[in-house]
């Protein structure tokens, strides 16, 4: 059975005017369907990417997969557990949270500006009770910082003392701190410069190998997805219009929208080709 199964995920937003206004103006309800019966599955250790433009529903799906948002219909199963099933065991739900973590787009808003980064990274360890002994906790934080390419001395610094790329690394360290199995990456490098982006993407690749992580990658940038994902789902207006292994998608796009996206994407590949032949 696949590790992550999204089945007929649907999410409505009720944007209607209040009942009385509707009666007076004789207007119907206004329901926005952000996600419309989307189904996909991710195998353990895979990197699955959802690509789409604004309004495609990819961020909403990310929120539903992470458990932050309840679907209006459909379900999410992680390793056989229904994420939104009845809370039979509070502890099990808490542990479920531990297995899924997220890395966000904005390096500025994703870290609490008033907390030292040592504490930011320590927080999941404390919350999930992974390590009880204080000394061991500090060791673990140092270890995590090292894994993302920062140093132990950074523990007492504040987020504003770091650059955008370094802040994303801190976010990644925080995500790793809970020893997750799945990491949802929501446009993690969109706000970064090219050379910094390369560092962060390479880091994510290395970490995936080292810790056998499963990634759900959300992006609008096909070039970034090409680097990171082995399977791609194309979203348009809340619907999954095409899904394929990345090589196949790039070589033989089937849906009109996919073809349009591929041709519209600004691609340095018009001049630069990789040396390796497949």
């Amino acid at each position, binding site marked *: 059975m696949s590790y992550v199964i999204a089945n007929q995920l649907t999410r409505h937003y009720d944007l209607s005017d209040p009942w009385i206004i509707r009666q007076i103006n004789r207007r119907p309800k206004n329901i926005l369907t952000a996600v419309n019966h989307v189904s996909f599955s991710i195998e353990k250790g895979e990197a699955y990417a959802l690509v789409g*433009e*604004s309004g495609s529903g990819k961020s909403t799906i990310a929120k539903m997969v992470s458990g932050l948002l309840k679907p209006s219909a459909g379900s999410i199963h992680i390793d056989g557990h229904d994420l939104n099933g009845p809370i039979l065991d509070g502890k099990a739900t808490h542990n479920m949270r531990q297995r899924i973590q997220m890395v966000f787009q904005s390096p500025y808003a994703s870290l609490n500006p008033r907390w030292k980064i040592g504490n930011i990274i320590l927080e999941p360890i404390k919350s999930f009770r992974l390590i009880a002994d204080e000394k061991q906790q500090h060791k673990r934080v140092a270890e995590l910082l090292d894994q993302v390419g920062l140093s132990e001395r950074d523990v007492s610094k504040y987020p504003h003392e770091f*650059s*955008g*790329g370094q802040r994303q690394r801190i976010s990644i360290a925080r995500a790793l701190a809970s020893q997750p199995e799945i990491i949802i990456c929501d446009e993690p490098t969109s706000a970064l*410069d*090219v*050379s*910094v*982006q*390369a*560092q962060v*993407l*390479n880091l994510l*690749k290395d970490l995936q190998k080292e810790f056998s992580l499963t990634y759900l990658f959300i992006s*609008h*940038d*096909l*070039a*970034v997805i*090409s*680097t*990171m*994902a*082995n399977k791609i789902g194309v979203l348009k207006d809340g619907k999954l219009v095409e899904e394929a292994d*990345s*090589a196949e998608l*790039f*070589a033989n796009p089937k849906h009109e929208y996919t073809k*349009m*996206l*591929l*041709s*519209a*994407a*600004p*691609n*340095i*590949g*018009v*001049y*630069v*080709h*990789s040396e*390796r032949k*497949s």
Partner: protein
Amino acid sequence: MANPLLEIDQLSVSLKKRKQTLKAVDNLSLKIYSGEILGLVGESGAGKSMTGSAILGLIDPPLFISSGKIIFEGERIDQNTKNIRGSKISMIFQDPLVSLNPLRRIGDQLVETIITHFDVSKTQAFERAKSLLEEVGIDPSRINAYPHTFSGGMRQRVVIALALAPEPALIIADEPTTALDVSVQAQILDLLKKLAKERGTAIILITHDMGVIAETTDRVAVLYSGRLAEIGKTADVLKDPKHPYTKGLVASTPRIDANSLLEKLFQIPGAMPDLDNIPEGCPFHPRCDFADAQCRKEQPPLFQNRSACWLSKD
């Protein structure tokens, strides 16, 4: 080669911070010709937006132009840009949401710009506005609509129409498509290419996206720490970069390619220095695999009109 439309000659833009004087743009020289699209590419803090602002005279204290000249159509403009700005040189910014006045119809904003620059009647201005909208791909019957009724991409087209209204010789576009969806981005870039070709307008396209550069520009200038690292025809610079920074940038840009999943992206170690930490000599040398003693001491000039690197000397 015809005379350049705009020439930037050894421009430096400086910032006074408590006790130091920092350079945001350092001794930059560039030429741009009519009808071409010149890309100005660099990472955040490289000085590309600052250069665009300097051309338009939009440098406010505590920043100031500390040396150099900007020459437009043969005349010096860096000391008095007011007449040129908005008429012969216009600008397009990144965010179409804030570039348009939400309280005024787009037709009114266009007409106002036209009347300011040309001695025509309101009716004539109106007709011109309609033809401008058509040129940028907007249905002219929407001339009386308000900005909020347009999508992001359409709004950016309106902004381009506004920039075209004074019939400028040069348009400076600062990250015009960064906030837009990919499909819309492609349309806007095609529009810019069409304008350069059909009207002969020169365009300086400021961006951090190498993909955009590849698809849109004729020539490209690569900036690093406020200095020019490399300049040349886009095809040449991207296929065969001479400056190590350009090589690194090109190699670290992701591309749509079946092989890219299996490879790691090339990464340039370190990060671009802050303004108050720019090293002596070539600013890139701490991150450069090929740096030698000369690179660490002396700033390289531009060799063969192409690359500011001691290794390009021959």
